């Protein structure tokens, strides 16, 4: 037996996504955001997307391009404070925004990736995020049912990958990527370096290959990946 090779061109991998799809995007701010895959989605023209991402990036970066081109119908997120366009579009009703507590977004995505139907949590019980959510009693205390999130596709950014799709992330660029890499029907990983089988040590794999459908090697990184100078 040998492990299959999943390297694919960016164009081919992204072309499997249709308009109306739900797409998860890794990243917390710049680190871990799959900018190249987002650019390809922009180029191919898919519309009416539901985007699941921690944040909406900043002006001129990542998700902001999709927003500017009117490709996003709905955004499930935790904080969009660094993107004035996202806030404006939300206030003007041009996009629908669902806010989650940050760790609960991580857990809902993970639950989707773990084949669970939901998690039960007391986070946000005292807040308006609790509105409309079913509650159950656990050990005599109320808690909310937060349903699992899955997507048609997930874009993740890895520092390194082997051709089978074992992924390694770097520093705080890990963030939401490992959970999203579990939680979509089509998982596309862009990697700064693609190594042969055996290139990622088995004990150091962050996302095991069986979760990943396509591995895309990045060439030179665009300036979107750079340090943000404020």
């Amino acid at each position: 037996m040998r492990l299959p090779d999943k390297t694919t061109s960016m164009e081919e991998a992204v072309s499997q996504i249709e308009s109306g799809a739900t797409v998860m995007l890794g990243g917390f701010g710049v680190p871990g955001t799959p900018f190249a895959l987002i650019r390809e989605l922009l180029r191919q023209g898919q519309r009416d997307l539901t985007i699941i991402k921690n944040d909406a990036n900043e002006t001129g970066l990542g998700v902001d391009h999709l927003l500017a081109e009117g490709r996003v119908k709905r955004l499930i997120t935790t904080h969009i404070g660094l993107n004035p366009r996202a806030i404006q579009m939300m206030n003007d009703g041009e996009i629908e925004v669902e806010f989650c507590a940050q760790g609960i977004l991580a857990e809902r995505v993970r639950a989707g990736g773990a084949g669970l139907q939901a998690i039960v949590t007391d986070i946000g019980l005292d807040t308006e995020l609790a509105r409309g959510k079913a509650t159950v009693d656990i050990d005599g205390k109320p808690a909310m049912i937060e349903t699992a999130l899955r997507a048609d596709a997930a874009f993740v950014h890895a520092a390194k990958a082997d051709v089978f799709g074992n992924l390694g992330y770097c520093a705080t660029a890990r963030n939401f990527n490992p959970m999203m890499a579990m939680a979509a029907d089509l998982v596309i990983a862009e990697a700064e370096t693609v190594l042969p089988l055996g290139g990622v040590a088995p004990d150091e794999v962050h996302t095991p290959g069986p979760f990943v459908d396509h591995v895309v090697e990045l060439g030179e990184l665009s300036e979107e990946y750079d340090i943000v100078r404020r």
Partner: protein
Amino acid sequence: MSGAKERMVARAAREIRPGMVVNLGIGLPTRVVNHLAADFPVCLHTENGLSGIGPTLPAEQADRNLIDAGGAYVSTVPGSAFFDSAASFALVRSGRLDMTMLGAFEVAQNGDLANWKIPGRFSPGAGGGIELAQKARRVLVLSTHTDRQGKPKLVERCSLPLTAAGCVDRIFTDMAVIDVTPEGFALREIADGLAVDDVIKATGAPLILPEGEIPVF
């Protein structure tokens, strides 16, 4: 192992398609690995936390930290990954396991599987069997056609506690290859040297026969 059993295992191995992620249960299913070519593109998964299982090793070459779920000392291949038990079953439950091959005490004609408990006699717990049976995309059973007393294992309704309902897709026995269809058990192939009547007699539920000649394995 008898010739028919060995041929059953070899036949089951041919169900594995290139690119699949496959979990082979303890017992007969584990032997399927012996029938895969060295360059066949497949990822074997074991639920205790490894994707990319390599050959089983004798004790003197074994790594004390590297076993499969059945306790065999296995090895890695280039591209293997280790992960914890939560991630391992995340993979199973979320649809990333293309196929599992499991043993059985009973399989019912609606696909119900019982393979973990015989009340009053054998109750060690289900381990990972329920999740494998319930969530693998394709569930194959490898089993002798009858138990040691000669009683059919393929039945109209399971009498033992279920592992999962309606989960079995195909059954490989020392006598036949049988599909679970919406209409019940359907005979697909027959072991070399047997007559269809032999299979019918050893099966505890109606058997839908194919039209024309029955392939032999």
